[in-house]
């Protein structure tokens, strides 16, 4: 093996525009075999667009792409496969009703008979080589997110890809799954493959990659060796301006109980107890963090309080009205009544458009979804929602051509700003957010943290379900840790350590 790494892909002066929006401008990039390259940038900085031009989804307006030092034209995904380029998209490109094996051979032109057993044998071979774990006969709709991602990687490897592009592969994985993914990536690198990871998580960049290429607002900034980089230096290149690194956390003395949850138990349709006798209180002027490995009952907990989940008998959620001081039972009322009392939920699901927003509607109309029934007249009042939409657009720096552009056309991070912004703008008494910063870049994340802090100061009881332990420890006043649907501990956010919370997250109590 020579010391000089062989160039897999070279992009020179690549430009792509969508209408008047410049997604990529004059990008130069070098991808090498036997190396992991991180493509780092904020939301909407053009990372995915750039890689989509390698996978044949988009066609560049200008510039030249070289594969193995030969100039190439990639007009379709098929061309990309022929050049041994495989991309694992953030939204998986899988057919739900097909088995794993069927998805793998889809579109392949191997010649010869279509032999399911032979396919299964080769899939197992690849799995054994790189350390994957999938069943070729399992249907995709019964797979977990992590399994689907594994399937996507196996799919491109089955097609003989030598250049693998992973679009935000860790966004939906748990810590253990991320570790597993990284070890697979290292195996592929050792095998001489070129791997590109699109990401905005700095710790992952530093953990797994050899070089980092940074994009900002569609422009290419630099490529640096990971060993010479630090979180601070990368952040600076990525955002271009200094980012406030510590999150403000004021101590509010004057607290009052807003929610009193007792013996909350939820059994899902499969008969599994997803929440087991949860009891806690939430106070105004406080951010209560909820930590836990994903799928430990966070979603069900918030939905129960918001009235969207069926709870088992004996559960009680008391809401204390800030004006009258009266206690009201939320279990058994409708989601609408709960909202009217001022208990708001903004849940950012794995696919951001899945819940709470209508993709084909603009920001204004999405604002109206939650309060269209407030109006007195027969006709809709568009003025207030439009003002609200414009305010969110301004304050959260949503990148969109206008408030009437369908939100489906916005990039993922911007969609999320709209979703979270709407709930915060409703001036709630209890604000529950789940994964509010999922997939957001640092700058926007801070904007959201500041908004939550502002709410806290205004006397709102904030419940924040998060994934990033560092953020939870710096943002929240108290942290409640869930593990397997049970509370394993409630700690003070100011004194708790990362190790302490981490230990609670994996502590299974019977």
């Amino acid at each position, binding site marked *: 093996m020579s010391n000089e790494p062989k160039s897999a892909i070279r992009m020179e002066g690549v430009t792509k525009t969508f209408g008047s929006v410049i997604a990529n401008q004059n990008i130069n990039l070098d991808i090498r075999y036997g190396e992991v390259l991180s493509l780092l940038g904020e939301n909407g900085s053009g990372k995915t667009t750039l890689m989509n031009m390698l*996978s044949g*989804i988009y066609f560049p307006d200008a510039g030249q792409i070289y594969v193995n030092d030969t100039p190439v034209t990639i007009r379709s*995904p*098929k061309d990309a496969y022929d050049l041994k380029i495989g*991309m694992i998209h953030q939204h998986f490109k899988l057919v*739900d*009703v097909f088995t794993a094996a069927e998805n793998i051979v*889809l579109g392949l*032109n*191997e010649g010869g008979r279509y032999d399911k057993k032979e396919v299964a044998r080769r899939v197992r071979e690849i799995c054994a080589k790189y350390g994957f774990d999938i069943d070729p006969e399992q249907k995709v709709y019964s797979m977990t997110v992590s399994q689907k991602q594994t399937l996507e990687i196996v799919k491109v490897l089955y097609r003989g890809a030598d250049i693998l592009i992973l679009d935000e592969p860790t966004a939906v994985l748990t810590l253990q799954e991320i570790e597993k993914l990284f070890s697979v990536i290292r195996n592929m690198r050792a095998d001489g493959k070129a791997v590109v990871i699109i990401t905005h998580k700095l710790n992952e960049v530093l953990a797994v990659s050899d070089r980092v290429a940074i994009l900002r607002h569609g422009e290419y900034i630099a490529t640096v060796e990971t060993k010479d980089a630090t979180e601070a230096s990368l952040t600076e290149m990525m955002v271009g301006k200094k980012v406030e690194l510590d999150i403000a956390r004021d101590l509010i003395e004057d607290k009052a109980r807003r929610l009193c949850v007792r013996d909350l138990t939820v059994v899902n349709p499969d008969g599994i107890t997803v929440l087991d006798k949860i009891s806690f209180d939430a106070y105004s002027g406080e951010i209560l963090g909820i930590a836990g490995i994903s799928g430990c009952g966070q979603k069900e907990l918030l939905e129960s309080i918001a009235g969207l989940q069926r709870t088992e008998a004996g559960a009680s959620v008391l809401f204390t009205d800030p004006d009258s001081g009266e206690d009201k039972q939320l279990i058994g009322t409708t989601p609408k009544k709960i909202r009217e009392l001022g208990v708001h939920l903004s849940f950012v699901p794995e696919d951001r458009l899945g819940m709470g927003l209508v993709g084909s509607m603009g920001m204004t109309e999405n604002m109206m979804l939650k309060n269209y029934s407030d109006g007195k007249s027969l006709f809709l009042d568009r003025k207030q929602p439009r003002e609200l939409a414009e305010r969110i657009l301004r304050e959260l720096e949503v990148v969109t051509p206008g408030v009437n552009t369908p939100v489906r056309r916005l990039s993922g991070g911007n969609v999320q700003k709209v979703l979270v912004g709407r709930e915060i703008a409703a001036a709630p008494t209890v604000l529950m957010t789940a994964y509010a910063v999922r997939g957001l870049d640092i700058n926007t994340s801070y904007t959201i943290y500041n908004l939550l802090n502002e709410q806290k100061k205004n006397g709102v009881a904030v419940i924040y379900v998060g994934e990033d332990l560092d953020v939870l420890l710096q943002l929240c006043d108290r942290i409640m840790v869930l593990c397997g649907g049970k509370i394993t501990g409630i700690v003070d956010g100011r004194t708790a350590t990362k190790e302490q919370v981490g230990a609670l997250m994996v502590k299974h109590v019977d």
Partner: protein
Amino acid sequence: MNTIVSLLQAAICFGTVIMFGSLGEILTEKSGNLNLGVPGIMYLGAIASLTGAFFYERAVEVPNPIVCIIVAFVCAFLAAALGGLIYSFLTITLRANQNVTGLALTIFGSGIGNFFGGSLNKLAGGVGQISVSATSAAYRTNIPALASLGTVGDLLFSYGFLAYSAIILAVILQWYLNRTRSGLNLRAVGENPGTADAAGINVTKYKYLSTCIGAGIVGLGGLYYVMDYTKGTWANDGTIEGLGWLAVALVIFTTWKPVNTIWGAYLFGVLYWMNYYLPGLTRYSQELFKMLPYLITIIVLIFTSLRKKKENQPPANLGLAYFREER
């Protein structure tokens, strides 16, 4: 006994028409195209085969049965496939709304059919009723040795070759969709065109081909209708349209599985004709019985929806246009 045999015979003739319709529509829908132009396309196939046969029979002294069959078959298939092509161009290339396009095609097809049907009747002169007896006879030829086997012969061997072709086609389609690479690709196009595209499948080509060939197969339903069911004549009575809609209902009834059309189509036939064989029905209660095929389609829909089994659902992208750069 005789009543039952004759009911079953009627059901099988009836079933063959809608079986072709359903098979073509299943092939089309598997690519994600919901072509509601089935009745219109059946009309196109019917009138084209009749026209072709009419002019061939007029041009020669003694029509050759084989040529009769080929002329009518090719005319029916091509005219219907042309209807599919119109639909494909509008919905795939221009991305027009599929439902609207399909319904327009139904109106267009029945208009064309009845217009030329009337013209043909006029051209035929005489009693004002066209009859392509030679072609119709060729299509209705059976194997006499088998057909004369008493009840068994009546029940199983008394039909023209198209009735058996429909069954064979159903089996072939089932095998194609589930056992071949191309079939797998086609299903992927209907389920998730974005995924199929990313996998290097030419989505447009699959959609065009399956829609046009599917329409051609639907047209064979029209061919069978005029040549066998009405024995080479034309009547502007709208029966084809009714049969076309039943074929669409049958697609749902079979949960998009070609082999299910075999028994499904005959079951629809029995239900449709039952009112003639049940004693003591008035004209009004007869009409009630004619609702049965639609009624059980609704029941099947309710059950498959309740069970939520993914395999029994329509192709996930049915009715939607695909555009690669859409976000």
